[in-house]
């Protein structure tokens, strides 16, 4: 039987990837193309008519000051959160692989926040910031302390803290896998050559774990750029709309302000930015990977 004919290949493809292709097309590709089409209309979100307006939505999106402010805010939030998430995740991953007592318990414990949905997490932390911490600070400073969520920079800081708490456990798992994949032989060889513990991490483990870093950075960057649930339940943009991140602005633009087309165009711009940053990061990271 010939295995290089088009018919054979098509059959093979359909057998192994046919169903996935259909599902992928129907839940990703077609909605994406339809969404792209909506950016060229002035649809109000309800009507049957979708008047074609050309590039107007993109012009509106580019002149929407609030959008760019929220995007800038998202950059700052993401930059800090990505660094902190990965630093914290790496450190706890190191600790729970170094053979301390009850390390499996700690692994599970650190992972749990990731199992709680973002909305619930937001409400839980809202209580912590608004009630528990305020009460605590009240005892210490002897008066009514201000909640972190009541100040503009405080609200962003709170978002970062919650994101770190939420994602660090998940990223920790990937780093743990990375640490485990570094062969004992290499570490032992380094020890025999006189490496200190720290040197062997920096010069042996980390280079061999580049794949984990690439993965974790990609996941955290994309998640931070697209964050909505925690933003909604923790701050909802308060105070003064100063903590509304890009995804929230897009949602409000489309569904609260009923500018569906403009919101959709803004969402597309956010997607492109996200894809470009993610792509560059993966490309650069892959180049840095080494083999033992």
């Amino acid at each position: 039987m010939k295995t290089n004919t088009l018919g054979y290949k098509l059959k093979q493809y359909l057998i192994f990837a046919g169903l996935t292709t259909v599902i992928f097309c129907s839940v990703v590709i077609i909605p994406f193309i339809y969404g792209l089409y909506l950016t060229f209309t002035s649809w109000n979100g309800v009507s049957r008519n979708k008047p074609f307006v050309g590039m107007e939505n993109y012009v509106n999106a580019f002149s929407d000051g609030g959008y760019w402010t929220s995007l800038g805010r998202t950059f700052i939030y993401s930059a800090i959160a990505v660094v902190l998430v990965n630093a914290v995740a790496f450190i706890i991953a190191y600790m729970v692989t170094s053979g301390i007592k009850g390390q499996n318990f700690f692994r599970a414990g650190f992972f749990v926040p990731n199992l709680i949905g973002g909305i619930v997490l937001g409400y839980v932390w809202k209580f912590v910031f608004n009630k528990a911490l305020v009460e605590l600070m009240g005892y210490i400073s002897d008066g009514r302390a201000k909640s972190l969520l009541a100040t503009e920079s405080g609200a962003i800081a709170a978002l970062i803290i919650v994101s770190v708490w939420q994602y660090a456990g998940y990223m920790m798992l990937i780093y743990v896998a990375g640490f485990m994949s570094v062969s004992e032989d290499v570490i032992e060889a380094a020890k025999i050559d006189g490496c200190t513990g720290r040197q062997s991490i920096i010069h042996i483990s980390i280079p061999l774990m580049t794949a984990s870093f690439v993965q974790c950075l990609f996941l955290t960057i994309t998640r931070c750029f697209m964050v909505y649930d925690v933003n909604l339940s923790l701050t909802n943009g308060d105070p003064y709309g100063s903590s509304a991140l890009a995804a929230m602005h897009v949602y409000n633009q489309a569904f609260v302000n009923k500018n569906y087309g403009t919101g959709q165009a803004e969402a597309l711009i956010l997607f492109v930015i996200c894809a470009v940053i993610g792509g560059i990061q993966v490309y650069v990271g892959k180049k840095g990977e080494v083999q033992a």
Partner: protein
Amino acid sequence: MRRKIVSLVVGAAMALSMVACGTQGSEESAVQNSGEQVADSGNGGGAAISILNSKTEIQTQFEDMAKEYEEKTGVHVEVYNADTDTTVASQIATKYASHDPYTLSMVDPKDIYAVANEYAYDLSNEDWAKKTKLGITVDGKVVGFPFCVEARGILYNADAIEKITGEAFDPTSVAKLEDFQKLLDKLVQGGMEKPVGILSEYWSLGAHWFPMVYEEQQDPDAFVKSLLDGSGSLAENEKFNSLMDSFDTLIKYNYAKGSASNADREETSMMLAEGQIAFMFGGNWDWSVINQYDYTEHLGMMPVPQNTADTSNFKIVGGATKYFFVDSSSDTSDEQRQAALDFLNWLVNDADGNAFLTEKCALVPAFENIKADKLDPFSLSVKTYADAGNMIPTYNYLPDDHMTVVGQEIMQKYLDESMDRAALADAVTEYFKSATPIEH
């Protein structure tokens, strides 16, 4: 390279077949639908209608009613609760996109105007249309059925006040701002350190408080239009200053002063219910939160105290806030539509329907013929003011982003005292210059 082309071709073929399947499927289901309709009308009765309930706090009552309604009339009523994580408009849009619209949708007044021309059935000839002044009319046709009346004002806890002053509380005695201020001072001296609560949510500030500035004008529509075209001025406007004077007083006595923009709705409501504070700006819908707590007996709603001679300080602001529209599209059968019309009629003209509205759901009815004397204290206040003609109508044509921009970005700052009156007037005036007007 060839492999890539092959996979692209396959992908395209898949997509095409999907589309083909899609159209085929919908045709089939259309055929099936009409078949069902024939069968339905054949055996008479037994229609099924769907209702979108966007007053989520009465979902349980709605579901109970649906069961009883089916037992009595044979009409199956499916009640859907509006998602709280998305807007009602987008939820309706999804159903229309999938050709499965709700027979009856409960929406905000503004949504009615968005859907009227395409989806809303003409209700002008319904018997109830003559019994209310609050129906929504678009292009000469009644399309919105007013489900309930809600109003805003200052909620008060009379027990808390009387405990300190020792005399019966009469809301009309504090209609003037100076008198209100004197009472507040008295409460402070009597031991209630901060007698006022202000909700910091942007919908409360941007959709409930600030719109009073327009609603209490001689001609609200003309005033908003003048702001939109840039000719109107807010800074010198009498109503704006009078209402903001009152707001300043509320700020001064706000229990959450210092972190006012972060006040918690639950906490504020609880404090009013238990009498830790005496006043809170809100509406009769706040009852659903307040009755969760250990509330004292004598609560009520009064107009916002103001230094004004236009009698608006003796009136509350309100109107019908939720409307039903009946789907007019071909996805709803005539029989379903008739069942929907019967249901609306039942709400207005049947004793059980009235009881559902006023007793089970504790709503203020929008119809003259419906009696309602078992309402909660706030709704009773609303009914008293409404019956006496002391209700200023709500203005439903504010730009869509008014609530978020004016409520969150501007009024929250003012509430936090990090913006003064002149800057507030400037910011709102500036906002209107770039706002998109609502056609009406």
